[in-house]
């Protein structure tokens, strides 16, 4: 259990983390999201006693990190992949780490095996790729068999195999009843890994809720409707309160849909702002035939973009990428900043 109470950090005039109060519960993977500069790493450093909070507290099992007699047995952390001295071998790095907390040396070989670095255990960390560095960092986090684990961008630099492995590792650590707190920029990854989300923007807590709830709250949840008579459907929906947004379904542009026969889609519309049941009932009473009526759940990425749009610290001048709804929503939001 990680407990943050009014946690605040100021660097001069800049507020990095502002009055953060939340509990990160055991037995779950809690995703920690936010734009660059939102204060994620600062928060993690304060939890680990590396940065001193300007105000408030970060507690692990009710105690500040600095007062834990053998901290590696309580908390394992991966902060950055380059934590090991480049001139030291992977094994020597972990061995020194083990000795610092009185962890038996045989545990070093176990975690090296767990992360798949046994073959390069006697190679110097400086020769490691980013992915191997991440694995070494994860080995270090697991070394003390801790009940609380913090991972800052754990899948950075990992190959698809490694990403899958990290996802399974997180899930199994949480299933064992441990507290797993993981930051990431990869929304699709978080959607698959996390149970709960903590989203911060400009140092403030934006959301602390289960993943499903975050997605359900997104206004990007839509209904896809296919009818031979889109004109009447539009007229029907125009009478609804809101009024709801009706747009042609994506597929009118983009090569992927053209290749898969976009012509067959003809007349598909995406409707937001009306419950799916209401659309069905309306069409039934008006006698508008429906070929398709399907919920289009927003992705976590879309929900996240909506949440953080106003609190992007390093906004770009315009859309960096074009085409997807996500990029459009991001640029629309940042334009207002």
């Amino acid at each position, binding site marked *: 259990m990680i407990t943050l109470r009014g946690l605040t950090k100021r660097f001069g005039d800049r507020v990095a983390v502002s009055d953060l109060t939340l509990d990160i519960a055991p037995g779950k993977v809690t995703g920690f999201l936010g734009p660059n500069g939102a204060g994620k790493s600062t928060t993690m450093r304060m939890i680990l006693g590396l940065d001193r909070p300007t105000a408030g507290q970060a507690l692990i099992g009710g105690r500040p990190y600095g007062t834990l007699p053998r901290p590696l047995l309580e908390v394992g952390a991966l902060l950055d992949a380059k934590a090991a001295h480049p*001139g030291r071998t992977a094994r020597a790095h972990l061995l020194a780490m083990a000795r610092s*907390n009185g962890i038996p040396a045989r545990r070093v070989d176990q975690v090296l095996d767990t992360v798949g670095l046994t073959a390069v255990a006697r190679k110097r960390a400086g020769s490691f790729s980013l992915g191997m560095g991440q694995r070494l960092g994860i080995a270090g986090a697991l070394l*003390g068999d801790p009940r609380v684990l913090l991972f800052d961008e754990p899948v950075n630099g990992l190959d698809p195999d490694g990403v899958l492995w990290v996802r399974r590792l997180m899930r199994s650590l949480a299933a064992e009843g441990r507290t797993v707190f993981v930051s990431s920029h990869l929304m699709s990854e978080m959607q698959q890994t996390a149970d709960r989300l903590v989203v911060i923007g400009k140092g403030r807590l934006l959301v602390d809720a289960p993943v499903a709830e975050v997605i359900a709250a997104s206004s990007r949840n839509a209904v896809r409707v296919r009818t031979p008579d889109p004109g009447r459907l539009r007229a029907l929906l125009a009478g609804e309160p809101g009024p709801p947004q009706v747009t042609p379904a994506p597929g009118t542009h983009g090569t992927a849909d053209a290749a898969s026969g976009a012509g067959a889609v003809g007349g598909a519309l995406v409707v937001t702002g009306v419950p799916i049941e209401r659309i069905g009932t309306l069409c039934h009473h008006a006698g508008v035939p429906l070929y398709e009526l399907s919920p289009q759940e927003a992705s976590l990425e879309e929900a996240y973009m909506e949440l953080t749009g106003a609190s992007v610290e390093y906004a770009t001048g315009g859309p960096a990428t074009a085409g997807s709804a996500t990029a459009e929503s991001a640029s629309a939001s940042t334009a207002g900043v």
Partner: protein
Amino acid sequence: MTTITEVRDGRSTGGGGGGEGGGFAGAAAAEWTKLWSLRSTWWGLASAAGLMTLMSFILATSTASNNTNEITTDDQGVVSVSGIAVGAIDLVQFVPVTLAILVITAEYATGGIRAALQWVPVRGRMLGAKAAVVAAVTAPAGMVLAVLGTAVAGPGLGRWGRFSFGDAAADVLNVGVYLALICVFSLGIGAVLRSTAGALTAAFLLLMMIPMLLSNSPIPALRHVSDSLPSSAGRHFMAAEPGPYPALVGLLILVAWAAAVMVAAIAVLKRRDA
């Protein structure tokens, strides 16, 4: 993760070298492992030995040649063989001093300081463990260097050398104590300044340049300042002939410097974000 009991066992059995598991003993064991798992440590100590051999040989042969050339004002007569090694440490010390500085500044350079503080979050314990390991390595290293310097100086001096086992033993011991204290002092400077280049420059100025400039000053007050600097205090502590204060006072001044810098470094570490 089937190993909960195994790791927790370390707590009850003390985990081998870890004492009660962690604590100062654990921190020192970790620092020891870290130091010896870097090639730079071995290279540094080897080059200190090489430099000592060279310096002692040069000092010994130039003393001998000064005594035999036509100029009589530079004659030193018969000198102590181990005294040559003591003189050579003035310059040779900068190799172990660099190693001591790197113990902390390399961690700031690589980000390893955050790992070090995760393992051992108590600032004083982390830095104290580094100081203990630095002293435990540089004291015997200093003694070995002094023995080496003495062994080279003997043949270099020839008939101008005076060797007594008692003097040599005292010199060897003194060099070990001096080097350990000066390296702990330098470690503290490294912890305060964080940068290798900055700490090396500061150490060079404090240990070499400033005392050299001040000791030649016509103003007595400045000469007193020079005498109270760590390297001058160390020189008076190791010197055979009487200085401005007894040898023991020199040792105490040196200890005070090392302790003061360490206390300052711990205070800075406690306040500073890692």
